[in-house]
């Protein structure tokens, strides 16, 4: 559903409500993903949907109802359900008025026609290029090619009016050799910018170069984390920038802003307009999103808020709401870690003995306050000796505080977009001293 139809639908639903305050969110999506293994497609899917979410506020009471059935009767029933729930909800004395929104500008490159027009054949041809790379080397590959289109419209009785459309696409490849694997990925709002063949070749090179992996001893190592690895690690820190975790004491920043927590070369921002991943310029309350410096040179500068937490902490609303109300609080969802001054290759060249890590797997928080996490290396782990990548090594488990790592790190000078099913980050490669591994594997 395009923005004009979403706005028309949202206004119509808003008009059905007699609650004291009402917010209506309409979002639509058309997502396709072609997944492959053993050099053939095994899951090939597409889904489209449009949903309407109504937040009704009566006094200080809130109710929410959602539906994807868009006939008049269902929409009227959804509004009534939200109102009925609000009437039965207890009062929340801290509930602010719905935000009035404001002006915003959609970033360049967020919505790309070529991605909208991608077909199953488009994705199949990209897959086929990867299959051929695998077959030429006697490998087998697993991964996906995806294209998607989405749009969100938010209107409320305070006057907020916001619509945004975007596209996205991605290629993800794990290349499998006899006793080694390699991984590469690429994401872009414009599918025509993706070079699936190149992603396949990179993953194949990593599989080839990590062949016959040897075990190394666990313990403290200097590591070079490629962007996919560093991004996956860093995503376990993003919740710490939420006003909710800050106020409730579970964030590493909870001792206060203005203090030095990380190395002086660490600068972290939240920027929805970054050209590597232009995103939604407002939040799920229709409030324009601010581009924020969260950490500058190791010093905590800011946290992200929504209308509820801005009111509670008497801070400005930075426009980082999830669909409200929710139990998670505001979230920094466009995190950018600033680059350093050296190419990643130089970080490797300056390493006497260390490990080059392509990707992590199954990271989980061990200790929330200290931001200690555990996880595994995966799909391309290499030994560095005297500044050279010399061979593949077997995968290992780490236990490491992310805060500690960011006190003794150095960054590459190029930024990359990396992502998983629940995050998208803009990060450089990172060199970290004293990264702690606790055990190994036989593969």
């Amino acid at each position, binding site marked *: 559903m395009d923005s004009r139809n979403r706005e028309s639908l949202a206004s119509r639903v808003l008009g059905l409500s007699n609650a004291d305050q009402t917010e209506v969110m309409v979002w639509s999506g058309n997502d396709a993903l072609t997944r492959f293994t053993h050099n053939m497609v*095994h*899951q*090939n899917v597409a889904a489209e949907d449009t949903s309407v979410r109504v937040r009704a506020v009566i006094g200080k009471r809130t109710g929410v109802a959602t539906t994807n059935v868009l006939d008049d009767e269902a929409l009227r029933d959804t509004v009534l359900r939200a109102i009925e729930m609000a009437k039965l*909800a207890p009062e929340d004395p801290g509930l602010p008025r719905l935000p009035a929104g404001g002006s915003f500008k959609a970033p360049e490159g967020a919505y790309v026609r070529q991605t909208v027009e991608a077909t199953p054949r488009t994705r199949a041809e990209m897959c086929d290029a990867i299959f051929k790379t695998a077959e030429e080397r006697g490998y087998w590959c697993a991964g996906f090619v995806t294209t998607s289109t989405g749009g969100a419209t938010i209107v409320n009785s305070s006057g907020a009016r916001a619509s945004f459309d975007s596209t996205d696409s991605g290629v993800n490849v794990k290349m499998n050799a006899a006793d080694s694997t390699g991984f590469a990925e690429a994401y872009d709002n414009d599918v025509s910018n993706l070079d699936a063949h190149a992603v396949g070749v990179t993953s194949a090179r990593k599989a080839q170069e990590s062949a016959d992996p040897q075990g190394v001893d666990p313990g403290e190592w200097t590591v070079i984390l490629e962007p996919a690895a560093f991004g996956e690690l860093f995503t376990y820190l993003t919740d710490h920038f939420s006003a909710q975790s800050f106020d409730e004491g579970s964030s590493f920043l909870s001792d206060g802003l203005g203090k030095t927590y990380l190395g002086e070369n660490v600068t972290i921002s939240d920027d929805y307009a970054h050209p590597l991943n232009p995103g939604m310029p407002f939040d799920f309350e229709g409030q324009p999103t601010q581009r924020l410096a969260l950490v500058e040179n190791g010093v905590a500068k800011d946290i992200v808020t929504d209308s509820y937490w801005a009111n509670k902490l008497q801070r400005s609303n930075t426009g980082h709401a999830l669909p409200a109300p929710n139990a998670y609080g505001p979230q920094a969802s466009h995190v950018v870690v600033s680059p350093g001054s050296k190419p990643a290759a130089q970080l490797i060249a300056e390493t006497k003995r260390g490990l080059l890590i392509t990707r992590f797997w199954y990271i989980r928080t061990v200790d929330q306050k200290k931001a200690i996490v555990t996880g595994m290396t995966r799909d391309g782990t290499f030994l560095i000796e005297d500044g050279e990548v010399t061979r593949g090594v077997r995968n290992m488990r780490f236990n490491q505080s992310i805060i500690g790592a960011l006190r003794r790190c150095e960054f590459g000078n190029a930024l990359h977009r990396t992502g998983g099913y629940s995050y998208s980050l803009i990060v450089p490669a990172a060199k970290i001293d004293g990264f702690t591994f606790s055990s190994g594997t036989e593969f």
Partner: protein
Amino acid sequence: MSFDSLAARALDTATARGADYADIRFEDVRSERIEARNGIVATLADTTSRGYGIRALVDGAWGFAASSDLTGAGLDRAAARAVAIARAGAAIARNRAGAPPPRAYTDVFATPVLRDPREIPLGDRVKLLLDAEKALHVSPQISVGRAWMDLWSTHKAFYSSIGSRIEQKLRQTGSGIEAMAVGDGDVQTRTFPGDIGLYKAGGWEIIEQARLGENAPRIAEEAVALLSAPQCPSGTFDIILGGSQVSLQIHESCGHPAELDRVMGWEANFSGVSFLEIAQLGKLKYGSDIVNILIDNTLPEGLATVGYDDEGSKSMTSDIIRNGVLVGYEMSNDTARAIGRESNACVRAQNWEYVPMIRMCNLNLLPGNTPFENLFDDVKDGVYMESNRSWSIDDHRLNFQFGCEIGWEVKNGKRGRMLKNPTYAGMTPKFWNSCDAIGDENSWVAWGTPNCGKGEPMQTGRTAQCASPARFRKVRVGVGYDG
């Protein structure tokens, strides 16, 4: 509503477009979530979602298209899209992997429900949670109290071009509480029941089983006590795991590696592969002789209990580990056929928007013959751990490290002082072979997992791992805190 005429139209369109086989799964889903947090209702949401997913098979390649457009034109468009997607895959296929299911069923199934949760006035449901959450605030050090409830109902109708017509009305219910204590530069959390709440198939009776209010003060007091409790020691110890932690251990180290799609490399780029290779079937000594793990998708109250899976296969029981030996997998039609077996109905989709895929469903560790209190006997120097806090395992499902919310030292057969931050680590077969006692049926609980992630696009699955507490010998403890 009846989906019969809509299904006929979609299947006719898919067949006319060239599908060798097609099926369509309609779902009408209603979800209610209530969450109380620090004295307010943080979430009070009622969601309905209606739509369908069509699978089409063309020259051995599958295509799947989902839509919420229930008009005739919408059904035609989605059916044509599924066929076009399948055809695009077939054009680059190196071999024919997919085939129609072996048989069709006509049947109905409904989850047994003692009491419909919606008979309980919404105000009373909210009050139950607010009261339980309030009871968590036993100390100023409780920074966050939470109490939540999920009510899910699904009307599902499956039709296939070989004649299946299966209607199911499914109900699943869950609730839990959590207390987070902050102090002395530390954060400690306790959750009940288990680490995620109690989730089962059924109605209001599942909420009543959880007994949130009467357990809230104890849970909160434990969270506060953990702030000043000694650190769990590092080293090699005998450990006893509470039932919900054994459930998590089964889920991660048996349930996932026994998914045959994973074994065959279908999840290689994301969820990973498996050490339970097909050549090991009937040979691998996965665990000790007392370890028996089976699928039972007919189990009363099992969170994954259904009449038929999302490929239209009938629910059944099926052995995975018998007397410690690997004897089976969780299977779909295509994967089962590849190893000369038939599906054991372990295929689920998150909802109508998603393609069906293999899930562990209800995967149960059969109870042993040791009363819970006797698990502590013969333990000279050990740790008892409860309620998962952290879980990580490698992409072959061998090297794992799990952490629990709370532990107690065990000395000479007796439970002693409380310990904070207990963790343990190991390699899957060695760990399960060290299991020398399993709690009896009195401590056996159908622990549900409502949030299992797998697949691309990522799907959230609802599984269960029924388990009792169990004892394991000579396990590495304290990892992550030993430096």
